[in-house]
């Protein structure tokens, strides 16, 4: 087969599979930049997936479903924010609880919704003009749903916001040293609440993408562990929105290739590939000095006023 066809095929599938990873990881990056680890991504995604499906099926419009998925994801994250920011619970335990809660609740209320496909799925869109560019056009601007394009655009916006604006400095400083930020008059609690809920909103949209666009149907447990990949990707991307795009595409491409290359390479090895490469990159990242790794210094630590 011609190499162009291969490349277009691989990038196209990498984008399709990478889209939910991109959305959810962007959210997790912001939450963690503010100093809050949220291991509840899987739970927020599945709640977003179910609510988006149920609403889109009832309303007959996929867009409404995505909006509701976003709200539900944000609401789930609010639980985590209350637990970890206000009540200062252990962030890891609270996040795990959120995942278990989300999977259980979505499974329970989802009874009876499986077995029928979504009436109206989110349609693929071809961007006029941009899709005419040779090679790049068919690779990037064809056959994806609007959520993919918006996700890529959002990554750029969030990158600018995080690194080039005062808003970004505020979020980062809260994640680096909440006490200092507090002393400077920044409301640490509010910033963390907003970052966590924003993260949940994006995770909800990621889940909605799965049930409304990627595979327009509801099945219990349909996120199948994607939320955990997201948490690894946030580290993999060094808590940076633009590198998140690279990470999501890289993982998406490997995932696709693990099926594409089965005729040539042993499937057991291919199955291992995305995960092995994730470990490899994490190990390489780990070799660098702590500061250059880019982890927010106060990540995972609850903040109490007046304590150092």
């Amino acid at each position, binding site marked *: 087969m011609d190499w162009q066809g291969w490349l277009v*095929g691989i990038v196209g*599938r990498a984008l*399709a*599979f990478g889209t939910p990873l991109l959305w959810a990881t962007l959210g997790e990056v912001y939450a963690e930049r503010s100093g809050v680890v949220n291991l509840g991504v899987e739970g927020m995604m599945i709640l977003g997936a179910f609510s988006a499906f149920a609403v889109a099926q009832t309303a007959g419009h996929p867009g409404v479903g995505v909006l509701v998925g976003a709200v539900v994801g944000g609401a789930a994250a609010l639980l985590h924010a209350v637990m970890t920011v206000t009540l200062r619970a252990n962030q890891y335990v609270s996040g795990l609880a959120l995942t278990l809660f989300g999977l259980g609740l979505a*499974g329970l209320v*989802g*009874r009876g919704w*499986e*077995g*029928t*496909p979504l009436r109206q799925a989110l349609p693929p869109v071809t961007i006029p003009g941009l899709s005419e560019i040779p090679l790049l056009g068919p690779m990037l601007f064809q056959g994806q749903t609007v959520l993919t394009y918006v996700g890529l655009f959002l990554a750029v916006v969030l990158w600018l916001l995080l690194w080039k604006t005062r808003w970004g400095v505020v979020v980062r400083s809260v994640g680096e040293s909440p006490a200092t930020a507090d002393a400077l008059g920044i409301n640490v609690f509010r910033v963390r609440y907003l970052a966590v809920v924003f993260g949940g909103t994006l995770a909800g949209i990621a889940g909605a993408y*799965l049930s409304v666009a*990627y*595979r*327009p*149907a509801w*099945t*219990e*447990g*349909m996120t*199948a562990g*994607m939320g955990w990949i997201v948490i690894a990707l946030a580290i993999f991307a060094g808590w940076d929105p633009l590198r998140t795009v690279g990470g999501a595409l890289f993982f998406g491409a490997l*995932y*696709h290739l*693990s*099926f*594409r290359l*089965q*005729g040539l390479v042993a*499937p*057991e090895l291919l*199955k291992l590939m995305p995960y092995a490469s994730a470990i490899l990159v994490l190990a390489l990242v780990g070799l660098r000095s702590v500061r250059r790794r880019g982890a927010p210094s106060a990540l995972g630590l609850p903040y109490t006023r007046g304590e150092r």
Partner: protein
Amino acid sequence: MASGEEVIVRETRGGAGRQCGGQGVARKGGLDMKLLKLMAVVVAALAVVGTVGLAQTKIRAAFIYVGPIGDYGWSHAHNEGRLIVEKTLGIETTYVEFVPEGEVETYIDRLVAQGYNAIFTTSFGFMDGTLAAAKRYPNVIFAHCSGFKRAPNMITYMADFYQLYYLNGLMAGALTKTGKIGYVGAFPIPEVKRHISAFTIGVREVNPTAEVHVRWIYEWFNPAAAKEATEALIKDGCDVFAFTEDSPTVVQVAAEHKLPSFGHYSPMHAFSPDYCVSGQLVHWDKIYVDFLAKIQDGVYTAKNLAHVDYWWLISQAAAELGGESGLPINPKFVAALKDKIVDTKVFGKISVYDLVFARLQQMGDPGVSFDPFQGPIVDRKGVLRVPEGLWMSYDALGGQGRRRSVAGRAVEFNTGWAAASPQAAASSRSRCPGEDRCMR
């Protein structure tokens, strides 16, 4: 009610105690004596009632699933069977879902303590745990799906699809334009390989040069993996799809590309009304109702199950051809299948459409006059595995195969291809037509 009868049994024992005490009292006077005699009669009557009641203990059935009943696949299908049992036999049932394979014994302990006396475990990986529990609770009846270990109070059972996959293969071979057919497989284990082999035998019968391309996902349930595997097959030129995975993903993805596919396990026609050609449907209720009714009638007890194995196929109606019940072939594909004419030894020139129904009838017939795995069968490397005139035996087919788990020592499917004579195979498979098979 079982609990009611237990009360009666206890009362009998309590009565006997009182009878003894009563003899002490009886020395005092005649009136008491009479009363006591009356009491003794009552007690004896109660004892008789109690024993009779014990012999016909009411069945309370419990089902243990490995996945969620909402998977719209394996566990969903078992649960549909359970609901039909409740409706037709009026038996009280319950279920536990999402049970990790290593923890099945704990769940069995709890269910036995709650008074359940017929326990179905529906995953291959539950096998050893179920056997251990069967030894611990000799009066409870156990049924393990897809395994091969039995006990006096434990049967094995399976509704297998290989005949259906063969029929699907006939249709797939007729419908492919590129000559490449895609198959998304869960795990490379005997059961799945048996199904792919049967499917390929069907494909090659009508289209000798067609290829079946397989992509493994190494999971029973993973919609994203099934989707990417299907997309990869499409990119490699496949244009008809069959699969083993517990969600309708492959059918949906094929439909997005306007390509035909075959449903698996549950009715998936609705997910692709224009492109779902046919598929495989399971009716676990046929096995469940038959087995539980035989327990009710006293045919099966906790003493005589060591050689009972249900291996039910098309002829027992445990496996049905179609994308949804009652629709063996999607009307949209009837014309294409009628147009494709093949030359067969038995039927002469025949359309694939008619061939499918002719084979279906041969396999559905209690005598079973055809099997996909009848010789000559040549493997991928060109080695003759089953000579002309012979059928593969039940054991060679991996009848004691595995489902739901890849742990442990897998009996490799094609190493055990010992062929039996057609008569022996036919008789061993249809020894008691419509009945469960008695092994060894």
